[in-house]
């Protein structure tokens, strides 16, 4: 299972149910199966951060990252979201993929998760946080929460336009951050205010290392 190919993983994540009515204030953009597979595949095969690990997903939405992590052999995957319909969707999707045994989903306010969860309870946090477009700073609050829960690494997506800001915050917090991929996020016109069919947004996949990397990967 841990040697699953990128294409196989992407295929397994392909028909995951997504939001019928995404909520604008929560910036509920579904993570595409392609992007989810890329993130997880890199986390596992370049950094060995998934298989056999405790993994958390903050703002789990459809549960695609949690489920993908479970498929790659994560032993315990916890998904957190403030939206009851997202959590129900995650539970259904995990059951469909036969990974319920490894997954738990929790309804809570991710921005205050440090007051609901033991700190440093997870090896790895993987997330597609709100970009902070609708609610300024939401992206960085998610990042701080993720860093408080992880002992090894945090993988997070951030708009490329905010890169300097994100990297300097990482430096301030004393974590080692590295942009490991630049992705084109094809946001379908999920909301009525989107005039075009889809909008391409440049997004960085950043890995935040909680320990000093030995070989500077």
């Amino acid at each position: 299972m841990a040697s699953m190919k990128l294409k196989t993983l992407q295929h397994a994540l392909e028909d995951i149910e997504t939001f019928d009515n995404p909520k604008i204030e929560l910036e509920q953009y579904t993570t595409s199966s392609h992007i989810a597979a890329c993130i997880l595949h890199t986390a596992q095969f370049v950094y060995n951060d998934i298989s056999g690990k405790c993994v958390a997903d903050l703002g789990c939405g459809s549960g695609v990252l949690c489920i993908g992590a479970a498929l790659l052999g994560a032993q315990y995957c916890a998904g957190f979201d403030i939206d009851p319909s997202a959590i129900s969707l995650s539970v259904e999707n995990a059951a469909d993929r036969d990974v319920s045994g490894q997954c738990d989903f929790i309804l809570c306010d991710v921005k205050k998760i440090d007051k609901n969860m033991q700190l440093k309870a997870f090896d790895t946090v993987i997330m597609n946080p709100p970009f902070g477009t609708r609610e300024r700073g939401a992206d960085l609050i998610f990042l701080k929460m993720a860093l408080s829960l992880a002992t090894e690494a945090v993988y997070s997506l951030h708009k490329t336009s905010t890169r300097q800001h994100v990297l300097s915050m990482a430096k301030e917090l004393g974590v080692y951050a590295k942009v490991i991929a630049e992705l084109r996020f094809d946001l379908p016109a999920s909301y009525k205010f989107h005039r075009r069919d889809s909008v391409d947004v440049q997004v960085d996949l950043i890995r935040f290392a909680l320990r000093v990397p030995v070989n500077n990967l």
Partner: protein
Amino acid sequence: MKLLTHNLLSSKSLKGVKVGYPLRIVAKDVKISECEFNKEFVKKIIPKLDWKVFVNAAVEIGQTSDLSDELIEDYEDDDDYLKKVHHLLMEVEIINGELICPETDRVFPISAGIPNLLLNENEVS
């Protein structure tokens, strides 16, 4: 909700609550869901657990187990022991029930396996 998750949750998000741990559990429905036994994982997770909270939680939800309040010393080589821990930690699922704040008695419902820790605005610390 697994007992591993219970071991990690607190109600410190509530106004005025200092520790909020451990949450008491009332289990109405419990089901067993299968999850592959990974010895290395269980060995790695045991030192991270609040052991007493884990053992008490298992008793609280009616799971008879002969695990004692004190973790045995040579658990790393005891496959039967590790399998017992794995079963209680990962496979026992609380489907419907309640989590209760130890300081305020605020009830957080568990329904369809999902614990709901959301607060009303006036309860937030």
